[in-house]
């Protein structure tokens, strides 16, 4: 990770990357999002590329809560042409 971290830091100037040493614990990545969510990924015994992959995943996420999506299409304006009723004449 020592090799990949500086490059990751440089390529993402919008992120604040801090390293901490916590003795007696497994290595982990913690991500704090702007919407006050926090996500933690354990990276115990992973190769450096895999750690980088996990870090990139955290970068790419918005910090939503992981839920089953009810629909893959989210809109605030459901209809443009209006709902059809029996009164509509063309």
């Amino acid at each position: 990770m020592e090799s990949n971290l500086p490059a990751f830091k440089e390529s993402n100037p919008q992120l604040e990357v801090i390293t901490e040493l916590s003795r007696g614990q497994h290595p982990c990545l913690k991500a704090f999002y702007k919407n006050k969510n926090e996500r933690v990924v354990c990276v115990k015994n992973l190769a450096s590329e895999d750690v980088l992959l996990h870090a990139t995943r955290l970068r790419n996420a918005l910090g939503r809560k992981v839920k089953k999506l009810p629909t893959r299409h989210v809109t605030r304006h459901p209809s443009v042409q209006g709902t059809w009723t029996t009164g509509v004449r063309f």
Partner: protein
Amino acid sequence: MAQRRFSSNSRDDSENEEDDGEEGEEEEEDYDSDNNEAEVDDVTVSDMKREYSAEEKEEEAAAIGYKVIEPLLPSDRFFKNREPVFAVVQVGSHQFKVSNGDCIYVERLKFCEVNDKLILNKVLMLGTSTQTIIGRPILPDAAVHAVVEEHALDAKVIIFKKKRRKNYRRTKGHRQELTRLRIADIQGIEKPEPKVDPKQKRAAVKQQEKVAVAA
């Protein structure tokens, strides 16, 4: 063990990645002990991490139905207020009915980063409140602009297989990779003027009346 071998191979494949000093030594030993296997693995790894040229990327993207333009700059005024226009657009094998400001989750799109602008060019239908244009099957001169917001994993799906009376059970988890797109603009149809909300109108009228009473 398997992990180690994998990492050592990828190091051999792509020499541009820097090595960790400590790990390198350990990996060397493993590599000597099972050289043949490693060679077999080499092929699979190179298949998985296939390098695409720019044209190939574009081709594959076009097959799915999108085209990457450029990253979105904070200075860009890319998003507009809502317009009463919709488009039916195909991305991969899914079709979405979108208007601007919507967000859609599509299967993960390769070759695009977060904050990239995209053009979705498989537009099947365009419509406003008075007019509809239907493609046969696609409209060549229409385009939907979108921005990549997120690459994330979907919620976990558990695949459970069971054969009765055979003592057979298999559980497997799967998390689909998704990309979230925000629709910015729809082009290819003339847009009607946005109507003023009747509620707002009424409120304005009421205010005027109040003013009149006060006077």
